[in-house]
């Protein structure tokens, strides 16, 4: 146990390097490594998180799982992730993030491998919950790296850049994994199991990269803190001599953090509703095939890359690192297209355009509500804990969404059974009208809550 603890712990601070040009050189090198590898590997790790969403319809059609069972399995992952993000957020503040992150990716790969062999609800739910827990190693590690290597006035931009990883990962999943399991000629027509095994292989590769290239904190390398290096301090430098644990607990006493957690939670309901059920909705109700449905979801994720980057720039440059005005703009860009997607014209081009604007707005506001705004508000040395706290709320919301959506969809089920020579072929019909009200309503609540933080500014 001690060996494991020692392996994953952040190293002791080293004496500061005296040579300024050496400091500058090392900072430049490591900052490049940090942003490159947290973005790339977090994106690759995402493939192991979302695989189930792509193969959901094939699993339902094959009668392996009902919508309610799919909802249960999906929600266990999100609960596991919520717990993982929270506890791992606290742990990440003490960890060598490169090793910590790599362990999460490797273990997540193992659970994906197992999912390909399971058609039993409780086993799949357990594996997927563990996957959620292991997936929860990535975001806190990345955020701790961002807080350690980038200062206040530039963090919005780099956070935005890192947030593109969500979209890169989602895009890879919704296009890449869909290509594997979609019927020919659009896809390879492989069985649903490959939808889990391929992501597992990808995550092993990502684990290797992050283990090799993601550095520990600057002080462990003999560098000053990034705020000192860039002469970029916030409003107040509180609790410098306070223990990490005490400062972590202080996060829980900040009212803005609680409101932010609820706003993020509501937005995650919509986010994961579209991620988990969007492609099933497009296949079931709008009649697209698996590949095309995932292609539409892919459009939204690609637009998300631009959304993250533009959000960081807009909030840093136009609003002087104030997040609330940018939150409002991006919130509307997220909400309005939802009405077009679900209640608007049935034209595929309009649907694609609405999904693109939705993805753009969602990624922007999520970058803020899901982390950036929290680490602005919280003391920087406990960025991981602040992120973890927001994360647990967000993913409890997302998990509840998956179960509630699955249940609402399952309740609307009409099974048309065709008895054929002693066997039975079943075609299922579902009604998404109730889940859609739930998904859109959650976005409205989120934007209202985020608006309540209009006057909140960054600390340190």
């Amino acid at each position, binding site marked *: 146990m001690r060996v494991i603890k020692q392996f994953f712990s952040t190293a002791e601070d080293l004496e500061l390097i005296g040579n300024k040009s050496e400091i500058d050189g090392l900072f430049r090198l490591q900052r490049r490594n940090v942003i490159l590898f947290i973005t790339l590997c977090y994106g690759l790790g995402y493939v192991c998180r979302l695989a189930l969403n792509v193969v959901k319809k094939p699993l339902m059609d094959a009668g392996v799982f009902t919508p309610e069972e799919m909802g249960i399995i999906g929600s266990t992952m999100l609960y596991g992730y919520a717990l993982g993000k929270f506890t791992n957020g606290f742990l990440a503040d003490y960890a060598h993030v490169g090793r910590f992150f790599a362990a999460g990716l490797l273990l997540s790969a193992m659970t994906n491998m197992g999912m390909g062999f399971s058609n039993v609800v409780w086993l799949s739910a357990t594996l997927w919950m563990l996957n959620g827990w292991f997936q929860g190693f990535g975001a806190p590690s990345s955020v701790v790296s961002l807080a350690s290597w980038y200062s206040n006035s530039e963090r919005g931009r780099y956070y935005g850049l890192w947030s593109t990883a969500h979209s890169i990962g989602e895009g890879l999943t919704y296009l890449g994994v869909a290509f594997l399991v979609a019927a020919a000629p659009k896809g390879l027509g492989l069985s649903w199991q490959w939808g889990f095994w391929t992501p597992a292989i990808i995550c*092993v590769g990502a684990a290797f990269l992050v283990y090799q290239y993601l550095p520990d904190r600057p002080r462990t390398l003999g560098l000053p803190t990034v705020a000192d290096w860039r002469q970029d301090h916030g409003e107040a430098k509180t609790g410098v001599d306070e223990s990490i644990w005490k400062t972590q607990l202080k996060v829980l006493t900040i009212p803005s953090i609680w409101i932010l957690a609820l706003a993020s939670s509501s937005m995650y309901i919509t986010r994961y509703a579209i991620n988990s059920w969007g492609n099933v909705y497009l296949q079931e*109700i709008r009649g697209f095939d698996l590949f095309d449905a995932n292609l539409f979801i892919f459009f939204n994720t690609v637009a998300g890359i631009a959304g993250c980057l533009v959000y960081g720039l807009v909030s840093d440059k136009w609003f002087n690192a104030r997040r609330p005005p940018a939150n409002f703009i991006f919130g509307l860009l997220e909400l309005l297209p939802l009405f077009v997607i679900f209640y608007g014209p049935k034209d595929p081009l309009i649907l694609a355009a609405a999904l693109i604007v939705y993805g753009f707005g969602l990624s922007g506001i999520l970058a803020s509500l899901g982390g950036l705004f929290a680490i602005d508000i919280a003391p920087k040395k406990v960025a991981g804990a602040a992120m973890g706290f927001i994360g647990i709320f967000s993913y409890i919301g997302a998990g509840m969404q998956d179960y509630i959506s699955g249940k609402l969809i399952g309740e609307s089920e009409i099974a048309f059974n065709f008895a054929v020579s002693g066997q039975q*072929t079943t*075609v299922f*019909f*579902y009604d998404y009208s109730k889940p859609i009200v739930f998904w859109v309503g959650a976005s409205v609540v989120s934007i209202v809550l985020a608006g309540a933080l209009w006057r909140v500014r960054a600390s340190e």
Partner: protein
Amino acid sequence: MAVFKYTAIVLFLLVSACAPEPTNSYCSTHKSAHKEHQMEVAKLVINANKKGLVEVNFSLPSNQLEKTNERLKQVENILEVRGQGSCTLVSIDVNQEGESVKAKYHLDCGVNKPLKQVDIKLLDNFPNIDEVEADIKTAAVRKHFVISRQCKKPIFEF
């Protein structure tokens, strides 16, 4: 490094041990071939609306009936509808039109009593029917597909 090496070996062994599922060539090609014999296939159109009314239209070439169309006059030979409440048969209309037989059934399953299950018994009760083209519309969605005796799964997008 050893961990990565052995993980890669295990993954390779697991993946390489799997073989694709066997496929039925008729079913895999029927998506594109169905149009060629579409006119000779039995057709089932069901419209279940929000008010609980279920309209069923069934047509088939008369040579696919064994002798007479008497069996079509019993709705339980065609389908059984199960919902939150019981469904009442409102009307049955069976007619010979040229070389095909057309049957219409109206059922009332009640407002706010959603359907849960519909058992279609055509392929069991009419042995000469090999294939049914179904066009089913519920309050939320419409699906158009083919059910064939030779295929385990329905065929969509033909």
